[in-house]
């Protein structure tokens, strides 16, 4: 299972890097989303897969899952939600203000202004 997860994570990172290196801001934002998904899956895998029952709730559970990675992932998801939302608003404002979401053109527009 860990091997499959590793491939999934690697694939996510690969796609994220590809998207982040593109010129459109929107693609870059999607890339950062994929990057954080990959990181979250990595935490889950690193905490050790396996363990079926939730811990603490019932007595006598032996095969319990590690609750910590899940808590970390939840926190990280909330944070990446906030950052992505902010990033989207910023991209939208930049699009309004500069009339394009292509980073090369933004650079050119600003160079003309100076």
């Amino acid at each position: 299972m860990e091997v499959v997860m590793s491939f999934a994570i690697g694939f996510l990172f690969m796609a994220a890097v590809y998207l982040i290196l593109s010129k459109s801001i929107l693609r870059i934002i999607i890339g950062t989303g994929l990057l954080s998904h990959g990181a979250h899956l990595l935490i889950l895998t690193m905490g050790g897969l396996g363990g079926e029952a939730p811990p603490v709730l019932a007595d006598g559970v032996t095969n319990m899952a590690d609750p910590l990675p899940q808590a970390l992932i939840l926190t990280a998801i909330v944070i990446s939600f906030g950052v992505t939302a902010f990033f989207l608003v910023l991209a939208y404002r930049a699009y309004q203000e500069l009339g394009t979401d292509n980073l090369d053109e933004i650079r050119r527009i600003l160079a003309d202004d100076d």
Partner: protein
Amino acid sequence: MKLNNVILKTTTQVVFFMIFLFSIHIFFAGHFSPGGGFVGGLLTASALVLLLLTYDLKTVQQLLPINYTTMTAIGLLLSLGTAATSAFLGDAFFKHYFDHFTLPLFGDTELHTAMLFDLGVYLVVVGVTMIIIQSIGGDE
């Protein structure tokens, strides 16, 4: 942007309340099973976004005259207040208290202060999401 879509409008009137009630259910389920303030807040926000899609921003603002900045602030205050209460009672910050109460209709119920914290999270999530949606959708 004026949409004249009868099917969407009619469905929204029903579906909005279904999503909203479900979000409240999810919110209260939070302590022992999947759910909680964050998910509940997102669901409520999505119900509001559905309203925004169907009607325009002004109509919704007249319908629900809520200042979302204040809502976020109240949520933060509630969360911080719940976490800080234990500090005034001589325990460590974030200590949470719970007890069993017998309530009418519900019977024996376990009440947690963590619920108040989660209510704060709920308000913050709804507030922040709506601020973002409004700032993007505000200037069509």
